[in-house]
């Protein structure tokens, strides 16, 4: 069975990427299971998606704990424990990273013995995380790495999965995915199917009896000032809203009221200030500002940065 995990941020197309790969496997005659995994939907938050493909019916479920291939669309996730990019990577796993750094740097940094490859994209290194159709590039590369998916089946899968978004989206996804597929030629078949662990010699779970603990400790409370403020959700951004104060008409309420995270405050003189420690980069303010005084910039190298 192939066990493949995609990691990215909400908005980078990981769900679509996993579906394209799942459909391509299915068209090749595999049994398939694919699923995205995220909490409350939000742009920029870490998400992952997974694909299982086998010649036999699949009874495994849920998170893939021992992946054959891990694809990372946004390298800033590697350091985020909650994104769980690294768990389960073994010596036989292939790690495909979209990064400004080389695979050698990652190898050295992570002290992994597995194969690490760079996602072949022609984008400017600065713009990698914002690359349009990034998911298609991930899928194209992954498809070639498995050695189990033909170019035409990959194209058909893109037609199936991207079709509802229109012809232009299909054309551009196709071009991006096939370029990545072709660029991975020398690594075709590098990712190998693995078998499930036998029931002999399994690692025994260390079960524990949960003690009854004091109610003030055991009740699920969140204290606003303590938790909400101190969790720096600003690191979720892939894009950053920047206010051009020469165009802002000091209306004093539109952006600040509609910001779903209350991350825009208004000064006494009606000037809005963005709290970049907590702005998640949803870009609602960019869309609603009446004089179009707020624009989006890529997170890396954004001007007006304070975070």
């Amino acid at each position: 069975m192939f066990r493949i995990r995609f990691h990215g941020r909400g908005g980078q197309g990981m769900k679509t990427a996993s579906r394209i790969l799942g459909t391509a496997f299915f068209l090749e005659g595999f049994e398939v299971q694919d699923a995205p995994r995220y909490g409350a939907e939000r742009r920029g938050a870490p998400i992952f998606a997974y694909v299982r493909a086998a010649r036999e019916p699949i009874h495994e479920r849920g998170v893939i704990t021992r992946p054959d291939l891990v694809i990372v669309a946004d390298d800033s996730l590697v350091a985020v424990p909650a994104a769980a990019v690294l768990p389960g990577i073994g010596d036989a796993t292939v790690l495909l990273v979209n990064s400004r750094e080389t695979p050698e740097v990652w190898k050295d940094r992570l002290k992994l013995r597995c194969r690490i490859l760079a996602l072949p994209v022609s984008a400017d290194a600065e713009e990698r995380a914002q690359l349009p159709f990034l998911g298609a590039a991930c899928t194209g590369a992954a498809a070639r790495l498995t050695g189990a998916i033909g170019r035409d089946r990959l194209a058909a899968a893109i037609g199936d999965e991207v079709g509802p978004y229109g012809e232009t989206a299909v054309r551009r996804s196709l071009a991006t995915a096939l370029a990545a597929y072709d660029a991975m030629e020398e690594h075709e078949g590098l990712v190998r199917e693995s078998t499930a662990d036998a029931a002999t010699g399994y690692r025994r779970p260390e079960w524990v009896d949960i003690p009854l603990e004091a109610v003030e400790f055991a009740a699920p409370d969140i204290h606003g000032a303590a938790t909400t403020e101190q969790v720096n959700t600003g690191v979720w951004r892939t894009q950053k809203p920047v206010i051009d104060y020469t165009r802002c008409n000091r209306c004093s309420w539109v952006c600040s009221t509609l910001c779903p995270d209350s991350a825009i405050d208004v000064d006494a003189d009606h000037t809005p200030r963005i709290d970049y420690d907590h702005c998640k980069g949803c870009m609602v303010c960019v869309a609603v500002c009446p004089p179009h005084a707020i624009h989006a910039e890529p997170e890396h190298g954004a001007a007006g940065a304070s975070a």
Partner: protein
Amino acid sequence: MTRRLLTGNAAAAWGARLADVDYVPAFPITPQTEIIETLAAWYASGEVPGRMVTLESEHSMITAAAAAAATGVRVFTATSSQGLLYGMEMIYTVAGWRVPFVLVNVSRALASPITLEPDHTDVLAARDSGFLQIHCATCQEVLDSVLLAYRLAEDRRVRLPAIVNLDGFYLSFTREPVDVPDAEAARKFLGPFDPDAIEFRASRPISQGVAVLGGSPYSYFRYESHLAALNALPVYEEAARAFEATFGRHHPAVEAHRCDDADIVFFMIGSFATKARDAVDRLRERGDRVGLVRPRLLRPWPEALLRQLLSGKRAVIVIDQNLSMGKGGVLYAELASSLYGSKQAPMLLSFIGGLGGRDLPPEEFYEMVAVANAALEKGAAPAPRLLYTRDELREMHKLQAVATAERRETGMGK
């Protein structure tokens, strides 16, 4: 018939489509929303005839579903978790109207604390309502069970509404290959709804919820519903055989996997049962005589079948993905009541696992068998156990320590 990749939610929508439902009262809730979005897109494009109405709450939605069913049309609706509980007053009420419709519940654990991931405590809250319950383990079963549920609910010998349950995330958002039957074959299996005596009309008023006092008429009506629910067992077997004859897939009331010569049997419901199936196959490779018993039907409870399958086994490992506070696992208690007093009764072991979507890795299945073997040796079942590891508790305590320190620093809380 075409085979395609569908999520559990899309499979549920296909089930409704192939059942030619007339009316869909709807209200969104994660992880169910994709079901009504899929149906809404079909209705909006005119691809499928029928009518969808969004209501202002699940309470109204379930009322509308039953009221429409009482006019003799075929009704489909769907909800999840807090939504099911918000409509719970009407779940219990409309089951007594004895009009059939199908409600898909996408299981999601209940607040508090709030979560989006699944366990079965939500759907078990409807256990005693009079709704029939079919529990699915795969996306294929979701589609097939919707068709089966209509056949069962509409049968004159039953006439009760039915819940088809699937697990959030593990089925709702997971795509698997699903055989989608041709519309003609589906019609051949199900046929149009023949409402005969069901004829609620504005011009011919009927009260669906009569008041009775004194207990005697109340007892009569309630027990009639109970008898109708029990009658759904043979009717289900009939429907499952007809389903197999039409589509070639057999969905018996209870799935038994490698159970015949098994000494130790896993007992559970829902999608995690496919993980148990894998574990059984691995354990068999090791030489262990292990099997799996999974009821699809939870209401009616297939008691005789379970007795027949489990009598004479040495031990049954009951895995409850639910928790009744102050008691424990619901399935464990139900199964114990079915086997109590039989000389052939196996030892029962109770495990609580998979609460709020917590995964059940293969090694936990293997270890449960080790615990069962040790208990058999000792001749006594161990206390019920929550599947929870030392590492999980350590992580939990780490989070609590951070929260406590933050509160102290910011002067919030104690």
